[in-house]
């Protein structure tokens, strides 16, 4: 083969020495020739470092000396003859080509995405099973304590709705604790454990007791299914995965990935709402309360929230969709409703109280 132009450094000074390299495969030597002298390095002592378009060659016996060439082909040829070298497989991967590298990237990203979509949520759900129920209660109690500090409780309504709720078997481990607070907003939410908070205006348009029962069933279903805890575990595990994969890359991408994660949590919480609708329906069925209460509830919510957010960004499924789902459940599942005079009485008492929202 043709001689390869290179520069040899003696390791004592920085003076460059022009040399020519060649390979003698039979004697397993790399030949080094300059104008003044000739020499050789045994292939078994060679260490070759290829990086980009530069090749540095070292001799393990004289580590201070080095030879540099930009002839990458020669460097690769040397590598293939260097007997003991753990680097060979690395360079094979490194020089596999752009197509192979992009395929690797896509494959690794695919694996990460798959584990994000399927494996992580699965692990998160199992994790929830391992967390004891009373942890939910403790957490809910803390959040409730912090939340209620800034709110005014309507004691009369709280007691009435509580006695209403006590008539219903929600199937939760302990009876839900109701709190009715003053607000200008029409809403209700469940905390992990046992607390259900109701914003007073949501009671105002209610016409019959099954509607209130439907609201409570929906919230109780959240508690029963431990949705808050599941949400927390998923959010946390999603966050851990996102930061583990992207935080080393750089801040900007980590922020993008984190927002994608948040968007995904929205759709996840919509799935929970759908499940709570369904399980709430079952609670009504179990208590033999007319499930039409749920449809009334959604219709009232619909007029309340005229400006609906696009489904993509909303935590709740569109109200029309929820009504449709419930109607199909009513059709599919046979149920029996009795009249509940006790619920009726308490409901009428609730309606008698002044539910006008406080003027701000």
């Amino acid at each position, binding site marked *: 083969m043709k001689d390869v132009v290179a520069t040899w450094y003696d390791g004592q000074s920085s*003076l460059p020495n022009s040399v020519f390299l060649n390979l003698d495969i039979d004697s397993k030597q790399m030949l080094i020739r300059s104008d003044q002298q000739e020499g050789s390095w045994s292939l078994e002592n060679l260490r070759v470092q290829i990086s980009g*378009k530069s090749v540095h060659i070292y001799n393990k016996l004289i580590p201070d000396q*080095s030879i540099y060439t930009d002839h990458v082909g020669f460097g690769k040829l040397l590598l293939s003859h260097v007997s003991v070298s753990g680097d060979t497989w690395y360079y094979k*991967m*490194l020089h596999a080509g752009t197509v192979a590298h992009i395929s690797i990237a896509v494959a690794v990203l695919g694996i990460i995405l798959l584990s994000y979509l399927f494996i992580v949520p699965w692990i998160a759900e199992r994790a929830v099973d391992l967390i004891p129920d009373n942890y939910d209660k403790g957490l809910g109690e803390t959040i409730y304590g912090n939340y209620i500090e800034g709110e005014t409780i309507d004691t009369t309504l709280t007691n009435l709705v509580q006695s209403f709720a006590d008539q219903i078997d929600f199937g939760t481990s302990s009876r839900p604790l109701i709190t009715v607070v003053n607000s200008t907003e029409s809403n209700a939410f469940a905390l992990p454990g046992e607390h259900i908070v109701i914003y007073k205006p949501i009671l105002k348009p209610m016409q019959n007791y099954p509607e209130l029962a439907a609201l409570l069933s929906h919230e109780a279903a959240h508690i029963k299914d431990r949705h808050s805890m599941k949400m927390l575990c998923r959010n946390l595990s999603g966050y851990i995965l996102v930061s583990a994969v992207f935080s080393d890359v750089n801040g900007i991408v980590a922020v993008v990935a984190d927002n994608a994660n948040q968007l995904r949590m929205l759709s996840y919480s919509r799935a929970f709402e759908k499940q709570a609708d369904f399980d709430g329906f079952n609670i009504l069925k179990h208590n033999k309360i007319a499930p039409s209460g749920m449809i009334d509830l959604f219709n009232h919510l619909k007029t309340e929230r005229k400006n609906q957010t696009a489904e993509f960004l909303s935590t709740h499924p569109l109200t029309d969709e929820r009504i449709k789902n419930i109607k199909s459940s009513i059709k599919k599942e046979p149920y029996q409703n009795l009249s509940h005079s006790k619920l009726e009485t308490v409901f009428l008492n609730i309606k008698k109280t002044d539910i006008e929202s406080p003027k701000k």
Partner: protein
Amino acid sequence: MENTSSLRELLNNDNPERNYPISFLGEGGEYFGVLIVNWLLTAITLGIYYPWAKARKLQFLFSATQFNGARFVFHGTGNEMFKGFIKAILIFVVLNALLAFFIWMQMPIVGIIIFYLCILALIPIAIHGSYKYRMSRTSWRSIRFGYRGDRKELVMLFLKNILLTIVTLGLYTPWLSMNLRNYILNRVKFGNLKFKYTGNGSEYFLLVLKGYLLSLVTLFIYMFWFQRNLLAYYIDNLSIANEDGTEVKMKCTATGGDFFKLLMGNFFLLIFTLGIGYSWVVCRTIRFLFSHMEIYGNLDFDKLIQSEANYTDATGEDLSDILDFGIVV
């Protein structure tokens, strides 16, 4: 500059002033290959490959940098950094055990104070070890760099300065930066050559103050010029001297506008490629740095003499990674 150099040439023909080209020849595509293989191997080995990945990364970046016709080489290996990594982890295990012991003894406050004091003391130890390792594992034309600082001295200097910084609620930070930089950079060797840095805390303080104020007034548009000034303060005050009196000086020729183009370009490159463009961003940034750097003087780089010993303990290097303090000194 050309005028002065021709004047010098007349006065001293043996040591004419000249400039020395420095450039970064790495391409984003090549670096992408390095990173993707690293990434895959690190993922498969659940992170254990990290030290080797780091070695590969540094080897690529150093070899892609060419100064005065020859490339830099990073000699550090994954094995060395793995050993350092284990030692660094052990240090943290011991520290946490100590903390747990104090909590068990019902003295959590004492434990936490001791824990954080140790972490604080670890920072200069990590900087010292990291410099010593990196410099000794870096070479150019087979001539090694070296760091000749004293660990005890650096720890004392750091603790004294950090105390002043805490007492002054951070106002002392520019002096802290400059004192550390002066100590460390003035102890860096390149064969028989010595690095020289002449940063001044008061000057740096005014620079930072001006940067903050103007950034606020201009709704952060001045940030780019501020960043440029910080870099220029680093480079312009740096020089390399030989014992025979010859030396080279450095100068940053980037403008705030150049910085604006660089940073905005990087930002969009990352956003629109969802991070895949990272390797191009890195190469682009280093290329920018060196192409806006002038090195000139009358030093003969063919006559460097090997003077620095090998140093293969990478514990400081790995400690810095774990502490992740991002202090540039």
